[in-house]
């Protein structure tokens, strides 16, 4: 007769010895821990609006009546269970109509927002995921989410629970990318320093299942981008003062130069101390030297923004930039600028090559300091139709 190894061999719990009881308890906790860890790593998948039906066949399709029923139930009780929020969350992911239905229901959003501050971690996660899918809606929906739950979302960023922190970052990214008004509101809650500290957080290795630093970088880049950027001048100054704390080898470092470039930190009005200049130069030359190809998005960010920031630096702070560049090229990387630029030309990307030409133009002009850090005869500029690529106003 076969014996099932999982079957307990002991008598019922009432007659178990204390040692056996502790062992059973330890096994139970270990099993629970494994379940939770598994849930943490595999259970979260992200989809755009309406994409979910194509990928997940077993998903329940909720009718308008079902959603109205859920809304009535949660608003009457002023409480939503994890299961109800999960259903709503799936409904929002399926269509914009479901989102509008919930948006127009008075008091429904408030119930979900209230669940974020509850003590039950399942409900907290459920509420945040519900808001995350709701934030796929249009600008008025996003503005309402930030108006009613923005403060709680910002507080969740301090949470030691990475899942809460990460889901909050997703909601913030969705809302600020949709509505400039929502972006301005979260900026007034002093979110930029908080995001930047999360982005700087150097603890632990990169974890694909739980990468909140990349999410923080995405939020930051949205806040600093555009002519009417949401970030205030004091936020930009904060980023400038603290940028040297970001290490080139740390997680999500590929966003660093993008944030600096779009925040317009390198401009003719700003001055940099030696430490800041060397920090930027380390990032720029390090990215150009160590990035092997132009395939992935991360590598593209590293290369494109290294070229753009360097191009502006040699114009705005020419002397210190060129001194720092010379020092690092000779002392750290043991190479020449021409070698790095030729490597970029070798990627065979026309528009990228044109941006390198912009950089060379800023390095070599009538007022440039002598001797130049770059010799034209060593450059392997590809022969492409630059006229065609130049913007209309320059032709």
């Amino acid at each position, binding site marked *: 007769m076969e014996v099932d190894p999982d079957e307990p061999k002991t008598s019922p719990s009432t007659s178990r010895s204390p040692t056996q009881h502790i062992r059973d308890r330890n096994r139970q906790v270990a099993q629970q821990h494994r379940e939770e860890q598994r849930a943490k790593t595999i259970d979260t998948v992200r989809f755009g609006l309406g994409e979910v039906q194509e990928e997940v066949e077993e998903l329940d399709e909720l009718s308008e009546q079902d959603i109205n029923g859920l809304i009535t139930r949660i608003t009457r009780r002023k409480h939503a269970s*994890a299961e109800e929020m999960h259903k709503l*969350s799936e409904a929002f992911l399926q269509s914009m109509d479901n989102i509008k239905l919930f948006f127009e229901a008075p008091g429904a959003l408030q119930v979900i927002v209230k669940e974020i501050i509850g003590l039950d971690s399942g409900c907290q996660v459920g509420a945040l995921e519900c808001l995350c899918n709701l934030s796929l809606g249009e600008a008025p929906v996003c503005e309402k989410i930030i108006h009613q739950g923005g403060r709680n979302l910002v507080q969740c960023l301090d949470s030691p629970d990475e899942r809460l922190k990460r889901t909050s970052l997703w909601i913030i990214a969705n809302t600020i990318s949709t509505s400039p008004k929502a972006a301005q509101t979260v900026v007034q809650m002093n979110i930029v320093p908080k995001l930047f500290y999360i982005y700087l957080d150097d603890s632990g290795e990169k974890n694909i299942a739980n990468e909140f630093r990349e999410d923080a970088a995405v939020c930051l880049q949205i806040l600093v981008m555009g002519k009417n950027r949401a970030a205030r001048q004091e936020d930009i100054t904060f980023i400038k003062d603290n940028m040297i704390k970001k290490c080139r080898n740390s997680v999500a470092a590929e966003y660093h130069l993008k944030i600096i470039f779009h925040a317009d930190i390198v401009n003719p009005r700003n001055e940099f101390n030696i430490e800041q200049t060397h920090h930027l130069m380390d990032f720029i030359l390090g990215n150009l030297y160590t990035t092997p190809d132009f395939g992935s998005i991360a590598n593209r960010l590293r290369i494109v923004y290294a070229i753009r920031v360097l191009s502006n630096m040699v114009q705005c702070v020419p002397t210190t930039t060129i001194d720092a560049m010379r020092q690092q090229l000779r002392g750290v990387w043991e190479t020449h600028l021409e070698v790095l630029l030729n490597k970029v030309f070798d990627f065979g990307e026309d528009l990228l090559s044109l941006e390198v*030409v912009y950089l060379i133009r800023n390095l070599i002009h009538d007022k440039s300091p002598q001797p130049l850090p770059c010799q034209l005869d060593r450059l392997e500029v590809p022969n492409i139709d630059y006229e065609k690529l130049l913007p209309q106003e320059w032709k």
Partner: protein
Amino acid sequence: MLSVAEIINLLNSIPVGYKSPEDNCFNAANQMYIPEYKKLGVITVANELQDNLPEADENDLFCDVPGCQIAFENSASYQAHFYNVHRYLCSVCRRCLPTAHLLCLHILECHDSYFIIRAKRGDAMYSCFLGECKVKLPTPKQRREHCINKHKFPANYRFEQLCGKPYKRHTKKPSKSVEANEIVDDMDVVADIPNMK
């Protein structure tokens, strides 16, 4: 590959100078190489997994902080409870605060006699509830207004609880004499644990 003369010709057709991040010359490369942010929702199977967990029994997790003893179904709930309720505990009155900054404010405002004297004298002593904001204001009321106007706290936010003060459901209209004693009243220590965060 271009010759030196051709490179010089090409460079002459390009203007020198600083280029702002919004300059049109970056548009084509942005479109080609840098994908725009795409809004994404989230779907999870966590609830299913949690439903399959064994039923909680009397031996399951419970909070061992004296006076709490709440039982939990899983360690994640216990962890959330501990962080929310017991992490930042005032050693004087056993009150729990949600963040280190608010615990600092609580100790100053409730247990520091030097603070009370200076606040009574009218000095700007009340720090903003946000750790990142360095503004100090002379009265709790002004701080409340600052938080609402500057940091967009909701007007019905439970400000009293943020630094360990009781939440008053029905507040009487304060008379002048009551207002004068407001600061002293605020220093009352409350034993219950608020649901903050």
